[in-house]
């Protein structure tokens, strides 16, 4: 027990963890070239362990390709640092105003780490494309997809049944809901797919026996290909689904997140609908949506350039929030460094297309966004306090030309000495 306490409270562990963190961050940066930020972030900073391997793209891969470096991931190093801080605090803390700075710094750090963990677990990133004059009441996820069945029988509102695709990548194939008179059976799934007409594929291309929808109309098939993790690329997530009623199967559809009804510079696909018991349903695999309480409408997108160049001088989008004509509709101008905050989401100007008539917003939801502000304030106060105390005691309290008493204390054990000296040896004393 004592050994465990010794281990977790030792500054050796602190130094080791700081060194490991530095190395982890370094390799977690390098791999972004090949795997993109999002995937690398998951592998390195949202995991317990990670293995870095010599990239295929690097020179000398034939000789050095065997090199692999196992590292503890962010979810191991972070909690260990927090534990280490707590144990060290209770082992070394001696009350006194000279220690306030150190305590504040470390408390702020713990808060920062916890906030970062919370953010990593809960932060969602979406986007929203709007053409001028268009409005939309949902944002779409950058990374995740959902399989949906939409009941359009009510003219006022659609009823959407949604299943995250992660479910069937784990093998769940039967999707049911009490509100639906049928079930979906996922008979094929590809995280990333190549979709092409059956007759244009290579020999032995599997015939998936698609009977309904776009897949049947265009005689399509798909094969699974390696998922991409590059920045700016998205997997063509595709599934093959049967609609099965108690009376038997009603057809087979290919659903894919590229079968979109709207998007700049992309083909428009018809909705895939079918009728059961006189009601019309739509089936789709699409970017996961989050619906907003009220629609956002783009009034005007502006984009000025510096004269004679293509360098953007500014971009801005003027939008309204709320039902047009309603009393609480409000206007907002979204431009660089001035995002719109709405419904716990932050909308910022990210891109544009179609000759400056379409605007894209990146939309981020982060429930822990206030934490870094507080922790930063605390740490900065701590650093300044430590600095101030040491500065004052060094230059005003200690007699000039002689070492302070604390720095002459050579008699205690190494670790004791460290703590005894901490007030005199804090940051910027």
């Amino acid at each position, binding site marked *: 027990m004592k050994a465990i306490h010794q281990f977790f409270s030792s*500054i*050796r562990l602190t*130094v080791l963890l*700081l*060194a490991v963190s*530095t190395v982890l961050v*370094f390799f*977690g*940066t*390098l791999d*972004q070239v090949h795997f*993109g*930020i999002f995937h690398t*972030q998951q592998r390195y900073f949202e995991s317990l362990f990670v293995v870095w391997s010599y990239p295929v793209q690097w020179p000398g891969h034939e000789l050095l390709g065997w090199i692999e470096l196992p590292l503890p991931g962010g979810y191991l190093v972070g909690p260990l640092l927090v534990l280490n801080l707590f144990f060290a605090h209770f082992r070394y803390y001696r009350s006194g105003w000279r220690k306030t700075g150190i305590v504040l710094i470390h408390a702020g750090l713990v808060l920062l780490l916890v906030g*970062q963990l919370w*953010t990593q677990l809960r*932060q969602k*990133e979406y986007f929203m494309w709007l053409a001028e004059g268009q409005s939309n009441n949902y944002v779409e996820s950058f990374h995740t997809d959902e399989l949906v069945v939409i009941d359009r029988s009510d003219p006022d509102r659609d009823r959407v049944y949604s299943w995250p695709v992660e479910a069937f990548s784990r093998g769940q194939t039967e999707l049911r809901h009490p509100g639906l008179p049928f079930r979906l059976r996922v008979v094929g799934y590809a995280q990333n797919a190549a979709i092409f007409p059956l007759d244009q594929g290579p020999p032995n291309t599997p015939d998936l026996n698609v009977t309904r929808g776009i897949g049947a109309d265009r005689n399509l098939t798909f094969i699974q290909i390696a998922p991409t993790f590059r*920045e700016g690329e998205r997997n063509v997530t595709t599934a093959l689904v049967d609609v099965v009623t108690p009376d038997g199967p009603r057809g087979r559809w290919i659903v894919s997140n590229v079968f979109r009804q709207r998007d700049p510079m992309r083909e428009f696909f018809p909705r895939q609908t079918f009728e059961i018991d006189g009601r019309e349903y739509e089936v789709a695999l699409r970017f996961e949506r989050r619906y907003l309480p009220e629609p956002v409408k783009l009034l005007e997108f502006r984009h000025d350039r*510096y*004269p*004679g*160049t293509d*360098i*953007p*001088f500014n971009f801005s989008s003027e939008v309204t929030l709320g039902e047009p004509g309603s009393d609480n509709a409000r206007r907002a101008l979204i431009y*660089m460094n*001035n*995002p719109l*905050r709405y419904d716990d*989401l*932050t*909308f*910022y100007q990210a891109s544009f297309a179609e000759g400056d008539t379409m605007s894209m917003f990146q*939309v*981020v*939801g*982060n429930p822990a*966004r206030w934490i*870094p*502000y507080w922790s*930063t304030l605390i740490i*900065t106060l701590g*650093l300044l306090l430590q*600095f101030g105390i*040491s*500065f004052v005691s060094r230059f005003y309290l200690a007699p*000039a030309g*002689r070492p302070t008493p604390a*720095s*002459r204390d*050579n008699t205690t054990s*190494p*670790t004791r000495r*460290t703590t005894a*000296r901490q007030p005199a*040896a804090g*940051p*910027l*004393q």
Partner: protein
Amino acid sequence: MTTERTTLLQRIVIGTVFLFAGLLFLRHVMPERHDTDFDIAAFLALPVQDGGRVKPADTVARTTLLVIANRTNVRDGDERLSAAEWFTEFALNPARAVERPVFRVEHPEVMGILGIPADDRMYVSLSEILPHFDTLRSQWESIPGESQLRSSYEAALAKLRDAIGLYDSLSHAYTGPPVLGRSDTGLRMLRRALRDRADHDPDSEEALTVENALSLFAGNFARAARSTVLATVPPPDGGDDPLAEWSNLGSVLLEATKTGNLDPLAVTYAEMAAAYRAGDAAEFNSRVDDAANLLAARGHAPGGKIAFEHFFNQFSPFTYAAVVYLLVFLAASASWIVWPHTFANTAFWLMATAFAVHTFGMFAHAYLMGRPPVTNLYTSAIFVGWGTVLLCLFLEKRFRNGLAAAAAAPVGFCTLIIAYHLSFTGDTVEVMRAVLDSNFWLATHVPTVTIGYSANFLAGSLAVVYLLRDRIFGGLPAPSARLLEGMVYGVVCFALLFSFVGTVLGGIWADQSWGRFWGWDPKENGALMIVLWNALILHARWAKLATPTGIMQLAIAGNIITAWSWFGTNMLGVGLHAYGFMDAAFFWLLAFVFSQLACIAVGWLPRLRLFNRGGDPEPQTDTPGQLPGHTTAG
């Protein structure tokens, strides 16, 4: 330690050093002299619009030559032209300028295409390139788009292609394209045609002939209008609106073929060029005056900020500061061998001089940008060196012994050299992309992080001085060793404070702008690595996990991490901060990393102590050996 008396010899040596620095300063600050009656300076003071802003033609002259030749002057046989003289000739007498060897060719095989023996020279003229243009064009097609994938041959080819493109895009800024093979009579022919058209009945046969001639002209002008990026004719009513778009000469001439009205400025430029080619200096000077008046009437008088930029260009404060930093280093190193106090004082005052000029240059550049001091990689290099020297001046003011000066001067010098090489990509006074358009954050987050870099480089550099002296040169007396340990410790503390606050301010900027505090972007990660490393050094020291030598080695490793964060992360081409991949820089980054690893390895050498002199100047202070953070136990 012997006390020192200032001898006559010392006074002479020190006097010479300062005289040199003073004369060099005068040379920089005096207007450039041209060995001719043509008022070239006045011509280059005329404003133009290029790269999204209005600037003196002088800036275009210098940056163009830097980009295509990587030099500040042209050597043609025995003749030597300054950037200003070359550009004037290039703009006004293109037929002569094509003979000037200004294109830098960096690969023997590219020279081979041009039929020039590889070892002969590095510079070729456009007239030497043109006969081989088709071969070059076919080679250009095979250059990979991504610069990371290019071989050195392809990189040299691409560089030549870009240089020719730049040359071409500026060629018709002041003189129109040749008409019917004649470049000197174009204006006269155009005016004649316009007059004839006005004089004749639109339905007459003569008018038809004139129309045909004009449409021939128009084709040429349209091509020039498309290819020229340098705009020399402001709109008559633009005033000082920064977004008012100027016209280039080609489009002005094209407009004239339609409307019949020739912009008087275009006429003045043509007359100016004719006078220049005819060697008529008086006529040339009076036409330059006319052009200045016409520009002034449109709200662009060649004074004020334009004149200041012209002065700033030729003053070139960073070149001066770099030379003086070199002197500082020599003086500081000399202080360990002979006349410790005298040379330490010399180093300090030289450093103060260089720092004053460096500071002026930095703020002048910021004034020209209309932005806080750090906005791009170039200005960050200027600022990193500045911050390091500033910190060092505080240390040297207190402990006048040349140690901090010897550590900071190389950082100041190297960062300015880096900045100089970064300027090869074009005008350093760039317009700001909208994404960075926030003066508040540019003025807080960026300088704070950059001062963190400065402090880390100073700590690392002090550690290099410590190890090199302790192990190889002269040996390090105990008081100096302890002083350096204290300095490194204090500077690392400072570095931690600034790196941390700067990084977090960046996070807050990101949250304010993009709704997320931290995105694991390479630049953010780099900053985080610096913070982690500084914390590691401090904890290792507090817990006595490393000897003083070990701490020094850790501080030198901090140099590597800082260089990675500053430059390496930009080379990855990932994320929001990726504002420029530089392939040549990768080599230098690796070289720097290896040099620092070598310095770390020095810490494991036995003490050689070559050139042992026996002592250092005692710190000239009332608290000897006392420095923030200094402790007696090693």
